């Protein structure tokens, strides 16, 4: 009963506005996988935004003697009694084969403190802060996902790295979409010589295996760049490769749109070319573009990761999911510290979430498709 009334109320509300956009959004909300993907993305992006606060350590806080320390066990029972969650101090020793073994020092527990003071960081790059969501008192350390080769906390580094990996997708896609839509729109709308030139340019980019192009572009710049420069460079490289495919599709669509009556009417009204392109043609491409946006972000995330994995992208000590995974490139070593694979799982989840969201968007905006729940 309750549900019916709420359905009715949404229907009446829909009747008031019911733009194509609101219909599509309502359809999207019913698309369960897409909404699940959307929620995963909300979680991942909030982790990235609040990385400084949530991560117990800074990205470069190292403790060499803790190299490859396994994930810290969080205990709840101290001498048989339930207590606040705590960890033990872990120590590293070598057995008679000179293999590392880790021992918990059971003499004294270190309770996990919430909202405690730790490494300092800056909020929005201005305010200094030292509060972290959780942490333990030195000399004990809490490694939720284990430690890397220099005894840095992998969990903290994944959070800090997510800022690079997740933002590069958005920014890279933004740049190449603006480029692709602009050039593709112009090519399709004006046709003739401009069309010819832009399309030949597209072909040049598309006819090179993208990975080779990525490598060559990276090599055109010096290797000793600062982390910010490398970041911008990766954005430029990925957008340079990505715009061509989109430009071709947008060109085709605007080519067919410009023959439509409403565009001819707009032209007869004396609206400028730019006005027609931005007000009449591009909005009609919106449905295609929103889905294509979500579906192409994974390519950028993977591109950044691949470059960083090969040591051509973000460099140590700065973190990105790709360069964190480069610890796993020594295959025969993984068995000793399998937690180095965790960054890859994060990449997988981010990519998967964008893929389902993109699928959902495409279905939601497709007027010919009836939605299956």
């Amino acid at each position: 009963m309750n549900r019916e009334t709420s359905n009715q109320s949404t229907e009446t509300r829909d009747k008031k506005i019911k733009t194509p956009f609101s219909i599509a959004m309502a359809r999207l909300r019913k698309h369960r996988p897409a909404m699940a993907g959307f929620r995963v993305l909300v979680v991942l992006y909030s982790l990235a935004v609040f990385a400084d606060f949530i991560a117990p350590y800074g990205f470069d806080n190292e403790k060499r003697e803790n190299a490859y320390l396994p994930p810290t066990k969080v205990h709840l029972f101290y001498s048989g009694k339930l207590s606040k969650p705590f960890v033990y101090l872990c120590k590293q020793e070598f057995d008679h084969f000179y293999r590392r073994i880790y021992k918990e020092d059971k003499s004294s527990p270190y309770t996990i403190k919430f909202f405690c003071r730790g490494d300092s960081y800056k909020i929005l790059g201005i305010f200094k802060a030292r509060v972290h969501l959780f942490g333990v008192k030195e000399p004990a350390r809490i490694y939720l996902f284990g430690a890397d080769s220099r005894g840095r906390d992998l969990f903290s580094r994944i959070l800090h790295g997510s800022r690079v990996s997740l933002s590069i997708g958005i920014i890279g896609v933004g740049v190449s979409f603006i480029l692709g839509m602009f050039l593709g729109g112009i090519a399709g709308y004006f046709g003739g010589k401009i069309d010819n030139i832009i399309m030949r340019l597209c072909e040049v980019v598309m006819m090179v295996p993208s990975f080779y192009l990525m490598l060559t572009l990276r090599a055109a710049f010096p290797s000793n760049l600062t982390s910010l420069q490398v970041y911008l460079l990766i954005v430029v490289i990925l957008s340079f490769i990505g715009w061509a495919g989109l430009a071709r599709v947008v060109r085709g669509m605007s080519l067919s749109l410009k023959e439509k009556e409403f565009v001819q009417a707009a032209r007869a009204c004396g609206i400028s070319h730019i006005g027609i392109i931005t007000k009449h043609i591009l909005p009609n491409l919106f449905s295609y573009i929103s889905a294509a946006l979500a579906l192409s972000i994974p390519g950028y995330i993977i591109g950044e990761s691949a470059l960083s994995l090969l040591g051509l992208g973000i460099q140590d000590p700065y973190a990105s999911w790709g360069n964190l995974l480069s610890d796993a490139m020594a295959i025969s070593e993984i068995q000793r510290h399998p937690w180095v694979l965790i960054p890859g799982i994060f990449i997988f989840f981010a990519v998967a979430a964008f893929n389902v969201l993109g699928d959902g968007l495409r279905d939601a905006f497709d007027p010919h498709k009836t939605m299956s729940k």
Partner: protein
Amino acid sequence: MKAYIIRRLLISLPLLLAISFITFLFIQIAPGDYFDTLRLNPQISEETIKLYESQYRFNEPVLIQYFWWLKNLLKFDLGYSFTQKNAVSSVIKSRLANTLILSLASLIFTWLIAIPLGIYCAVKQYRWPDKIFSGLSFFGLSIPSFFLAIILLYLASITGILPLGGMRSANFEGLSWAGKILDILKHLIIPTVVVSLAAIASLQRIMRANTLEVLRQRYILTARAKGLPETRVLYKHVLRNALNPLVTIFGYHLSDILSGAALTEIICNWPGLGSVMLTAVRSQDMFLVMGTMLVGALLLILSNLLADILLAWLDPRIRYE
């Protein structure tokens, strides 16, 4: 048809020229060159380097260097690779074969699995096999190839069934010819699976959608109405019509595989074009970069052409004049 192929090849010539020129420019922009690394080696005298530089026209203006490279290209001379200490053409020849082996294996593997799977899922639409494979194909689309490669190699290192990357075992030379082939096949499994998985996933989805589309057509209804057995309907009527749109994708697929193979080659240590490109780019081995880029682009152009020809051959409605 012949005229069409010739015209297409002629059109791609300026494209290749443009690609090679842009590549050349990018390498020129890059700070330093291979000789800077040579200069760090105290065993090589400055005179030798000077000699090298004049031999390969490094001291002349950029455009002249480019035209010199082009002129040699007409004689099928791609220049000399400083890092591999060999002519670029012979380096590429051996590496290209390996890349083609991997790409071909992936292509066959992909189509052999994806097409039956797509049809099967369409026939079983919304039932549990369809749901399971849809889930799996989603997984295949989302897992990055490098991560999959690392995981498979890791599993191989634990179980010891498959070799850990590379193309040949250490005792390769001592094997019989059958043993040699078996050895390479063994090394081929992981990279092939890695390159194919995403392709299988997307192709399976497309094939499923195509089959569903064809199953709705009236002629299928007719075929069933006149009492044809279901297998005959599937193989004679559905399969052929559902397969048609896939041919258009074939060319793009091939280029995806070629590009995707590069990263997989590097991680699996497969000695193909991708890994040679990485070392060439890293050490600024100019002629090798140019050569690899050119061959890569040529492969893509040829695969797209092949797709168009196949399409015309399969679909009688299409005529290229």
